[in-house]
């Protein structure tokens, strides 16, 4: 791999961004009542845990965290997708009348979020669905926007944005590959 890499955010920067997002979620929803966090596998899963931790530090009390694997809701099933295994969806609580905060690492075309929203609807009727992402890199192909953004990064479509996690599933940096 000869790609040129730039570090967009380091571990401390990611942590600050997640802390700010936690504050914004609490401010916007006026507390933790009825809030559930759903991470989109795989990157969003660990970020959702990070945000939930911050929320419990700020307000006290645990926020339910679930994980959704959106493979079965994708719109490109006939392509490369069925060559890869399907991940687990774990939402061990009802979403009925909850404020669902979807968490993903990078917001790009919006197709993943469309699929995740469809999945949420199959689990009940949430009061609202909000979206938190660490990086918004633009190039949307669907009318979707994030409610909480760690950082906006204008990119070209040839570039690749990657959130890197360590062995403990803690985010350590965000890379831009050219």
């Amino acid at each position, binding site marked *: 791999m000869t790609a040129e890499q730039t570090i967009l955010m380091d571990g401390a920067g990611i942590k600050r961004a997640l802390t700010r997002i936690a504050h914004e979620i609490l401010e916007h929803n006026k507390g933790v009542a009825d809030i559930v966090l759903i991470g989109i596998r795989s990157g969003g899963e660990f970020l959702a845990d990070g945000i939930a931790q911050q929320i419990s530090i700020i307000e006290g009390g645990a926020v339910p965290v679930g994980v959704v694997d959106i493979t079965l809701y994708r719109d490109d*099933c006939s392509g490369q997708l*069925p*060559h*890869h*295994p*399907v991940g687990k969806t774990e939402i061990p609580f009802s979403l009925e009348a909850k404020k669902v905060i979807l968490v993903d690492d990078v917001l790009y075309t919006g197709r993943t979020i469309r699929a995740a929203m*469809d999945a949420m609807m199959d*689990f*009940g009727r949430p009061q609202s669905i909000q979206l938190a992402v660490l990086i918004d890199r633009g190039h949307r192909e669907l009318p979707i926007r994030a409610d909480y953004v760690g950082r906006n990064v204008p990119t070209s479509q040839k570039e690749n944005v990657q959130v890197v996690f360590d062995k403990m599933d803690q985010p350590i940096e965000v890379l831009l590959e050219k």
Partner: protein
Amino acid sequence: MAEFKQKHIIALRDLSKEEIELLISSAESMREINSRDIKKVPTLRGKTIINLFYEASTRTRTSFEIAGKRLSADTVNIAPSNSSATKGETLSDTALNLLAMKPDIIVMRHAVSGSHYFLANKVSCSIINAGDGAHEHPSQGLLDLLTMKDKFGRLDGLKVAIVGDITHSRVARSDIQGLTKLGSSVYLAGPPTMMPPGVEKLGDVTVCTTMNEAIQDADVVMMLRIQQERQGKTLMPNAREYSRYFGLNPNNIKLAKPDAMIMHPGPINRGVEMSSYVVDGNQSWILKQVENGVAVRMAMLYHVCGGELE
């Protein structure tokens, strides 16, 4: 993680260890859908699946149909009694006619071993084997593996006894292929008239002369149905004698490990290969096998949709 590269699933013999593990892992993930209020995902929307069953089946056909529907595919069932096979149409002609209706997957059960390979060369859609003669029954093999993994968390190093009519059993062949690829040891027992010569060449397979030898310290005891419709009358004197030598009952079950799983691919001849006490006992995983069947078949239908990968 490995990739699933096959367009057809005809035999576990054709799949790599990694591909079998991938199917089991996806099935584990898909199981969650079956416990939801809304048991449906949009994955195979617009795909057409034809269930072509030339032999009787309740579990497998229903299970494939439900699996297809839970993935939002359109499923059509064709049974021989109401198809043109009764009017003398050949398998090849039936297949080409069905193909003209543009199915994406044909799930077939047929009495002739290897008929799926013949069909796969004729048609452009994916073929899934739901049982062919005495060859293989891959979906049953996979659901057996998944059920064993549920209990033990692994398949490596298990002692699995398979008892009964091995010669006529496609379930036994798929189980042997899957289990030996994933590191289990297989012990077979059955009347000599129902034991295929050379079966020990399939891998870590031991042929036992008595049932007790096979089930001694086994982690899993898989009992097979006596297939009266497939065998002639000469293979065993009568059901009572068979039951005495190769039936699982409250006494010989104690030879297996205390927490051994008892499995059976169904349908059961109660009182022949197993006593009712064992079928309904707390070591029986038979209904869990059926439950896992839906998730396993969902995984099979999903993964063949990627087509062949070089």
